[in-house]
């Protein structure tokens, strides 16, 4: 792979996050450093309470770190105001939720087109794009179904389409298969992997399931707020860059 593709998209330097619960100080993240390159599929694995969700929230700009730096596509997001963070997410980030989080009043194609409407794209254009995206995830027939008329797997495919439609630099996925059975999980994982590969996207996925994590190129093991190890996963092309363990 060329150097251009291995440009770092996410750089995390010395990241800390403390929560104050009553008198106690909980160290959710306790000094984390890593770099993720463009086109990589990374998963963050850890048990409940390990700090993996906190890490993802901070990467997506949903929470502010106590200390440290997060640089995404050259932007220091730890310093951004909420308004700028929203704008940043609108322009650079796609998000896949565990509980799908489709708007119940809208049908599939409208749900997929929603993030485009936040960019001010005219209705006709965004519906066409959304429809195309739905055919890509194999839901052409169901595009006018409401979320309640679809199975979990179908709903999550809509979720994937919604994350992809904005052509983001990075996609964050928070336990994307947490609400699905194992067969559907595998299908969705394969789908995500395929699209990431085809479109050279960067995907960061949080999961507690080691098996699902193994779909990724690199697996970040996290425990008690510290990065335990980074596991390379049968991809020779991926370069290692000064990762600390």
């Amino acid at each position, binding site marked *: 792979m060329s150097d251009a593709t291995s440009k770092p998209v996410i750089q995390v330097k010395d990241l800390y996050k403390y929560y104050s619960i009553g008198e106690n100080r909980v160290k959710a993240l306790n000094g984390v450093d890593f770099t993720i390159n463009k086109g990589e599929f990374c998963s963050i694995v850890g048990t409940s309470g390990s700090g993996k*969700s906190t890490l993802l*929230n901070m990467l*997506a700009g*949903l*929470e502010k770190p106590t200390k440290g730096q997060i640089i995404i596509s050259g932007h220091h997001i730890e310093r951004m105001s*909420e*308004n700028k963070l*929203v*704008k940043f*997410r*609108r*322009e650079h*980030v796609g*998000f896949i*939720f*565990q*509980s799908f*989080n489709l*708007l119940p*009043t809208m049908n599939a194609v409208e749900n997929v087109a*929603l*993030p485009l*409407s*936040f*960019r*001010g794209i*005219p*209705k006709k254009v965004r519906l066409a794009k959304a429809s195309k995206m739905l055919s890509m995830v194999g839901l052409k027939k169901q595009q006018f179904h409401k979320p309640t008329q679809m199975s979990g797997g179908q709903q999550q495919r809509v979720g994937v389409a*919604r994350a992809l439609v*904005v052509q983001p630099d990075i996609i964050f996925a*928070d336990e994307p298969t*947490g609400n699905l059975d194992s067969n559907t999980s595998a299908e969705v994982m394969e789908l995500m992997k395929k699209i990431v590969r085809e479109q050279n996207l960067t995907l960061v996925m949080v999961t507690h399931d080691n098996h699902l994590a193994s779909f990724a190129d690199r697996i970040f093991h996290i425990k008690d707020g510290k990065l335990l190890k980074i596991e390379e996963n049968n991809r020779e092309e991926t370069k290692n860059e000064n990762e600390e363990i």
Partner: protein
Amino acid sequence: MSFLDLLSMSASNLWRRKLRTCLTILGVIIGTASIVVMLSLGFGLKKSYMSEIENSGELTTINVYSGGNNYYYDEDGQTSNTDNEITDEVIEQFSQLEHVDFVSPILSCNIIFRQGVYRNDSYVTAMTTEAMVKKKLELASGTIPTSDEEIRFIFGNSSVQDFYNYKTNSYPYWDTGELPEIDFEGDFFVIYDTEAFYNSEYGTDSDTPVKPPKKYITGNNCLVAGDVEAYNSFSYGVYTNIDALKKQLKKVFKNKAIPGQPTTKSGKPYSYWVYEQAYVQVDDFNYVSEVQKQISEMGFQANSNAEYVESTQKQFNTIQMALGGIGSVALFVAAISIANTMMMSIYERTKEIGIIKVLGCSLGNIRSLFLIEAAFIGFIGGFLGLILSYGLSYILNTFLGGALGNAMDMGGGGSSGISYIPLWLSALALVFAVLVGIIAGFLPAMRAMRLSPLSAIKTE
């Protein structure tokens, strides 16, 4: 997000909660209608009052009297300040003033009318034909006398009360309630030299009998329209054309002094006419005070209804404010219910707001979404409230207007309703309802904007 997208998203959110939206809108409908109807009562009052005064032509009339405040007598009993007499020259000056429509001098004198056994010792008011037309004099028959013809008189529709039977020495109208039979269009004996008449009739202090004055016969007189009880500004008294009267008086008194006209020390009349009063008609009510001030500054005493009408208007405004205040309580309650509805909707949609925030919906757009929803409630409520107001106003006017209107009128027969909604009030009410919605929705919208996007990620 484009404005159209915001609109359709807000509308669909409202539609999703139909019942609650309808109930909130109902509150706004009642609030708007209560304010508008209350205010319309005030406007109705004001309007019927103004139209009544306008009909009498007295709203824009200034009555000018000679003298004014600096009219006084010197030590030797002579009236000084003769400059302040109202002469034809002064009339001309008045008519040169800005906003003055026309000016009519007023000449009054005692004249006795006789027909059959009935006599009317009257005080005749003479003015120009134009003044009579502009002051909306309406005749039962015939035409208004002009300067070019022989003198004719107009009798007020109530003046029949003033005729008395000089044989029995009684007033038929006041004593028996019967109207004397007088043919107002027929001929009258007219006596201009009343002093000589009284002296000949009732005698003088000296024993020499006085020769009765000459009687003139005048026909073709006319009567003011309306029955005896009806009131208008020409109801009482007798009127005529000023030029015809002047001609007639000159003919009657020849070289003698005309009663009421000032004389020189030797008792000789002046060569010009002096009027004790003049009507100055102003083209618009708003300039009445201004013109009145100018005339006062010229040294004349000027009266108009302006002050009185203005103070009455102020009174009506106070009443209207009080009514509007009562009405606004309902709208205030409606505003609270809008805020409450919006608040509820935000609690329900916390997760949804989080999701769109994660997906990159800007904070401003989120605020706009909720403000537009609140404004929608205000707009729909305001619009339906207006329709309700017009309906209520119509009902008030048809079923209550007659009874109440008659009680308030002074018998003028003005049938303008008690409730009146000016077009600008309905426009204002609509804007106000929308504003109330936006203000009520402001806090909830700010709250929605500040909700944490994290709530979207939390699994229920």
